[in-house]
């Protein structure tokens, strides 16, 4: 069954999803269930002077109304920042209080103020209209670049500055710049995005007074982490009496990492009223209150020597944290961002500062790629500008500066174990027919279209590790992963993983790994995740960690199964454990034709009675059962990389951009299932193209979200895309036995730069994301008048 690894097996989970048999949180209905509806702030910034819920309490069907006063009285803790970072002056970052129901002030449109619990959703909504909140409206700050000069929006946080982070050596970098032959400068805006998972968030709190057990069903990427946070910080319920179930989850993209106010409140409310409390976000609530992503303003400079070699990089970024600091809000624009700014170039010295600022907008946090798309955008845009300014070919300039030898210790943080950057760039150049691009450009010109080409040669760091290091730089938890393999007596296998699949295809990929290792048919392997009562503590899925970290825990648990199986098989086959080989699901006694299948061995482990001549198959000291657990803490991140080449055509009259050609060559190390990986790449590229051309979370000056529905927030659609060409190169990762790197975010990380480099190539002047028709038209006009003047 060795051919399971690398084979295009159709996703086991697709049948249920495609036939509407998925079971999401919203599909769950419990006896005696009640419904919650949240009263949210209509203002971006205001003091709450009074919350009068007396009328709502009397409305039909209302069971209770909870406000900020209630959660204070009952000592429900606020929401936390899970990874705190330190500013360059050595001081801890500043986090404002973030109550699950606001008591004194609100800080963005959609901020949670009160909750009405009623017999029906309709009644809850009707009553919510009767909750009278008196606000004293204050002026709000929205724009990232204006935050530090605005009055403090949170008491005690001067200049609305949460942290002022520095990575790298300022002195050395300045020295490099003083010796430079050429300095390239660039200003970029990384637009704010709304994650838009297909399934809106949802939560059901279910407290059972007789057992004192609390169950929370929630659309989460990491149920164990949620339970830890909610018991340790929100003080909702003790961990051993608290079960969190994240059933089928319809996409997360980072927006379902956080413990949200709604999760805590329905759990709390269920305990208060002794009945299940259900909340399902409406799409407009998702737009307003899911964590948003990106939102950076950046100035970057690149120093070159006379030999076209990069000798230094300087980057200054302001990152908009929004109104509060969420779980990964601070690490995303710092440690997940700054080290990645070096790209795949051999840059000897660099420094980066990041100011994390508060504004009256929805809080931001990790969003597909988390920090790496932002970094890749900066370096891939400035490298492109540099090549242009010195008049060198895009590919040639990149290759000249690529890291060539591995392992490579970068000047900031990462020690890249493996890669071959020329290989994927060469392959992408070939596949995209780069050499005939100028012909295509003139063909387009004949149709009155401007054609442009853009490169993005990216790397990224996924499977954040090792735990000791990440905890030393502020992480509240380690980032290992768990797995448990339970052989059932009849020979099929339940695999418990601490990761969580919400679209990634774990049911299939992990089954392929186990099938390959243990020689069990994948139909007989069940991948179990998403329930804190079922498997061991796990960290969940984000940052493209599941295969490299979670998959390795599974491999290690399989190895333990095999080791125990050998002992048992040895007894059954009347040999020594060291003389037993395991292959293709069979334990074979060396130099003999004696063998036992793993199913027979598993059966024997559970039923250690008489087996023919063998009295008991269990050797002395070996316990019955065949269950093994493993926790894996990787020694390093894994470093996927790749080359994207994009071509666009622009309508001169309207400024509309059309994607006409897109080529991807990725190095993900070992690919377990190319079909699953392809899906991840397509989706990732689409999301990256969305950021570059279409998506934009827009607040007006008063802080109203003006892109709060699909009528105004432009998602990319199938008809926006040409067929994307995908291929691979492979340098296996050395930090895990599978040789796997991550693939879940790569598309989103690389695509924005590839697309924008192509747009800017076509237009001939700078354009910021998203490159909407009007922006491109204005840039063309500006460029036209510049050319006319010249």
């Amino acid at each position, binding site marked *: 069954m060795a051919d399971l690894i690398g084979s295009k097996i159709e996703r086991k989970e697709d049948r249920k999803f495609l036939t509407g048999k998925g079971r999401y949180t919203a599909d769950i209905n419990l006896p005696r269930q009640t419904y919650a509806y949240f009263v949210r702030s209509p203002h971006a910034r205001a003091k709450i002077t009074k919350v009068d819920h007396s009328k709502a309490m009397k409305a039909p069907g209302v069971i209770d109304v909870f406000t900020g006063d209630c959660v204070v009285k009952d000592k429900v803790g606020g929401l936390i920042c899970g990874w705190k970072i330190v500013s360059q002056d050595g001081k801890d970052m500043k986090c404002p209080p973030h109550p699950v129901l606001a008591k004194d002030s609100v800080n963005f449109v959609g901020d949670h103020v009160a909750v009405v619990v009623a017999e029906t959703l*309709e009644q809850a*909504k*009707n009553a919510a*209209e009767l909750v009278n909140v008196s606000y004293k409206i204050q002026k709000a700050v929205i724009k990232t670049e204006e935050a530090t000069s605005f009055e403090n929006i949170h008491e005690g946080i001067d200049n609305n500055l949460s942290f002022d982070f520095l990575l790298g050596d300022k002195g050395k970098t300045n020295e490099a710049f003083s010796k430079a032959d050429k300095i390239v400068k660039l200003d970029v805006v990384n637009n704010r995005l709304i994650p838009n998972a297909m399934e809106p968030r949802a939560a059901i709190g279910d407290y059972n007074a007789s057992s004192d057990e609390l169950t929370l069903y929630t659309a989460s990427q990491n149920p164990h982490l949620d339970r830890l946070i909610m018991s340790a910080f929100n003080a909702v319920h003790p961990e051993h009496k608290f079960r969190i179930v994240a059933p089928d989850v319809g996409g997360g993209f980072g927006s379902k990492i956080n413990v949200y106010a709604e999760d805590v409140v329905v759990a709390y409310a269920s305990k208060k009223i002794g009945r299940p409390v259900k909340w399902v976000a409406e799409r*407009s609530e998702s737009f307003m209150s899911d964590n948003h992503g990106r939102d950076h303003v950046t100035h970057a400079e690149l120093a070159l020597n006379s030999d076209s070699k990069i000798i230094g990089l300087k980057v200054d970024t302001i990152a908009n944290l929004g109104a509060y600091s969420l779980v990964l809000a601070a690490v995303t624009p710092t440690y997940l961002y700054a080290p990645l700014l070096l790209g795949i170039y051999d840059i000897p010295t660099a420094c980066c500062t990041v100011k994390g600022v508060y504004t009256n907008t929805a809080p931001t946090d990790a969003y597909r790629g988390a920090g790496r798309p932002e970094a890749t955008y900066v370096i891939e845009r400035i490298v492109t500008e540099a090549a242009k300014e010195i008049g060198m070919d895009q590919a040639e300039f990149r290759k000249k500066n690529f890291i060539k030898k591995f392992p490579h210790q970068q000047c900031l943080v990462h020690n890249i174990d493996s890669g071959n950057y020329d290989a994927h760039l060469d392959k992408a150049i070939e596949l995209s027919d780069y050499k005939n691009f100028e012909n295509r450009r003139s063909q387009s010109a004949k149709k009155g279209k401007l054609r442009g080409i853009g490169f993005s040669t990216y790397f990224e760091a996924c499977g954040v590790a090792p735990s000791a290091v990440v905890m030393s730089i502020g992480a509240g938890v380690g980032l290992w992963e768990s797995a448990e393999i339970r052989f059932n007596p009849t020979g099929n296998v339940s695999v418990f993983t601490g990761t969580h699949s919400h679209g990634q295809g774990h049911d299939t990929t992990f089954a392929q790994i186990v099938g390959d290792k243990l020689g069990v048919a994948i139909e007989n392997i069940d991948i179990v995740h998403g329930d804190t009562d079922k498997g061991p503590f796990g960290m969940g899925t984000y940052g493209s960690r599941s295969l490299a970290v979670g998959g390795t825990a599974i491999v290690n648990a399989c190895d333990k199964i095999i080791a125990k199986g050998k002992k048992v098989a040895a007894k059954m086959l009347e040999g020594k454990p060291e003389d037993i080989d395991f292959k293709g699901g069979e334990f074979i006694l060396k130099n003999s034709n004696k063998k036992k299948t793993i199913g027979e061995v598993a059966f024997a482990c559970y039923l250690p009675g008489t087996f023919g001549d063998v009295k008991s198959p269990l050797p002395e000291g070996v316990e019955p059962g065949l269950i093994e657990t493993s926790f894996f803490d990787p020694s390093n991140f894994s470093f996927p990389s790749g080359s994207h080449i994009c071509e666009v055509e622009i309508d001169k*009259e*309207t400024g509309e951009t059309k994607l006409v050609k897109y080529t991807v060559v990725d190095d993900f190390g070992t690919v377990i299932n190319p079909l699953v990986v392809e899906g991840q790449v397509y989706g990732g590229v689409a999301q990256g193209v969305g950021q570059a051309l*279409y998506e*934009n979370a*827009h607040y007006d000056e008063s802080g109203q979200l*003006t*892109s709060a529905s*699909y*009528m*105004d*927030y*432009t*998602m990319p659609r199938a008809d926006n895309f040409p067929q994307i060409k995908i291929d691979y190169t492979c340098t296996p990762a050395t930090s895990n036995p599978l040789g796997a790197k991550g693939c879940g975010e790569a598309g989103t990380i690389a695509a924005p730069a590839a697309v924008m480099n192509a747009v800017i190539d076509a237009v001939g002047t700078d354009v910021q994301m998203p490159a*909407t*028709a*009007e922006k491109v*038209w*204005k840039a063309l006009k500006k460029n036209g008048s510049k050319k006319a003047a010249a």
Partner: protein
Amino acid sequence: MKNFNFKSPTNTKEAAKLYTGKATFLAGGMSLLPAMKLRLAAYSDLINIKKIKTLSGIKISSKSLRIGATTTHAEVAASKEVEKTISSLSKLADGIGDPQVRNRGTIGGSIANNDPAADYPSACLALNAIINTSKRKIPADKFFKGMFETDLKKGELIESVEFEVPEKSGYAKFPNPASRYAVVGVYVSKLKSGIRVAITGAAHSVFRSKELEEALTNNFSPSSIDNVKIGSKGLNSDIHASAEYRAHIIKVMAKKAVSSC
């Protein structure tokens, strides 16, 4: 959504009778239901007019094309007769929203709603349409009053829309990338009575452009639009397009519409 009574009359008389209290007509529900779900609107009674057979269908005579109020966008787009008589109209219907919206949304609902970015109002103005209601015949020139505002009185039901068959006509739309409503839509026609140019999406309500009509009356060709000055005053500015950009796009779409004639 707040509770309401749901009534399904099978003829227009019954519909008129059932229209009491804070009632409204329900056609495809594509505009009405989202507004109710978001609690921007609430009614005591919804009168579903989709069961009234006489309100649906397409009828052609030599001079006019009549489309029943509850005829869906998809039906208009698929109709061979419409394609043959006024092909720009079938193209317009085919470009509304997405397949779901086209399969539910109706022409009557679209013009009664008079969304400033809707497509059909431009066709009505450019093709000198008559709006036949339960009470009277309203010329399109008098029908569209302003943003989401028409000449319809309370309880007045649109029964059909009658378009004049033009010598030539064309429609070009620059769609909103998110909703695919018109950021700017320009409908150009050459009627017996003269040239008409109606513009939707660009201002608070659909309007006729005197400047473009004059230019095209002199010379019905795309090039005659080059020298027309379209000012941005009075045009919409929003997150999708500034007034300045809309003014520019009006010309680009007008040329496209004329070329397609």
